[in-house]
C-alpha cells in the first residue's frame, strides 16, 4: 500500500510517494529513495507527498532521515506537495519548520519528464 516514483533531471531528484507511510512501508520507501540518491549526483531532492493517505512517526522518520542525508551531502530538500493528512502530521512535529514545504494539496502537476525513471 505504498507507491514510490522517482525522476532525475538536471541535478534534481523528484520523488512522489503515495499510499500509507508507516512502520511496514518505511524501510522500503527509504531504500528506494536512497538507491536513487546513490545513482546520481543529486543537488536537490523534491518530495511530493500529495498522495500520502496515512503517515505516522515512522513515516516522518523516513522523510527526516532523507533530509539529514541531503544536508550531510551539502544538498537541499523540499516538499513540493503534501496531502492535508500529511501536512497536519508534519506540522504537529514541527517538521515543516525545518524542511521547506513549498506546495500544498492540489491536483498533481504533470510530470514533464525526460529524466531517467526509477521503478515505481
Amino acid at each position, binding site marked *: *500500500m505504498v507507491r514510490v516514483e522517482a525522476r532525475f533531471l538536471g541535478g534534481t531528484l523528484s520523488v512522489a510517494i503515495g499510499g*500509507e507511510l*508507516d*512502520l*511496514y512501508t518505511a524501510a522500503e520507501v527509504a531504500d528506494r529513495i536512497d538507491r536513487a540518491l546513490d545513482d546520481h549526483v543529486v543537488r536537490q531532492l523534491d518530495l511530493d507527498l500529495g498522495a500520502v*493517505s*496515512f503517515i*505516522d*512517526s*515512522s513515516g*516522518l*522518520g523516513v522523510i*527526516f*532521515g532523507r533530509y539529514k542525508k541531503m544536508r550531510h551531502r551539502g544538498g537541499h530538500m523540499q516538499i513540493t506537495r503534501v496531502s492535508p*493528512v500529511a501536512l497536519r*502530521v508534519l506540522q*504537529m*512535529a514541527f517538521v515543516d519548520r525545518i524542511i521547506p514545504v513549498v506546495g500544498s494539496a492540489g491536483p498533481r502537476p504533470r510530470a514533464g519528464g525526460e529524466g531517467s525513471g526509477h521503478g515505481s
Partner: protein
Amino acid sequence: MAAETGSPENYMKLELLARPENVALARVAVAAFAAQANYTLADLEEIKLCVSEAVSNVVLHAYPGGPGPVIIAAYFRAEELVIEVSDQGVGIADVEKAREAQFSTLPDHMGLGFVFMESFMDTVAVESAPGRGTKITMTRRLPSGIAAETGEGKDRGRELDP
C-alpha cells in the same frame, strides 16, 4: 438497532503478532470500530494515527527476541472511547523519560510516538514495568450527539480505507 450503535456495552479485542505488516490491520480495525460513534473523518484519522504509534512501539521495542503478541482493545464508556494497547514484552524502565518528546532508545527514531498520542487523545496512561510488559490506555471523548446517531452517521462513519 442504529440507536444502540456505539452504546457503552460494545467492545472489540484484537490480538495480533507484533510485526510491521500487522500495524495497518490494527489501526483499520480500531477506526472501523470507532466509526460506530459519529466521529468525523478527521477524528478517525487521528485515532488511526495513535493506534499506529502504540502498536508500532510494541513492534519496535517490546520483543527484542522476536515478535510476541500485541492486544488491542477498544470499548465505549460513558462519554468516551477507550483504546488499550498491551504487550507482554520487556516493559519500560523509566516511563517518565520514555514519554518525553524526542526520547528514543533506538537510533534514528524521533521519539514522537508518545507526543502524537498525547496530542490527539484526551488522556494517555502508561502502565509498565521491566520484564512485565506495557499497557497504554488512551481515551478520546465521543463526538457530541452520539446517542442520536442516525442512518447518516452510519453512512459517513463507515467510509474508511485501510
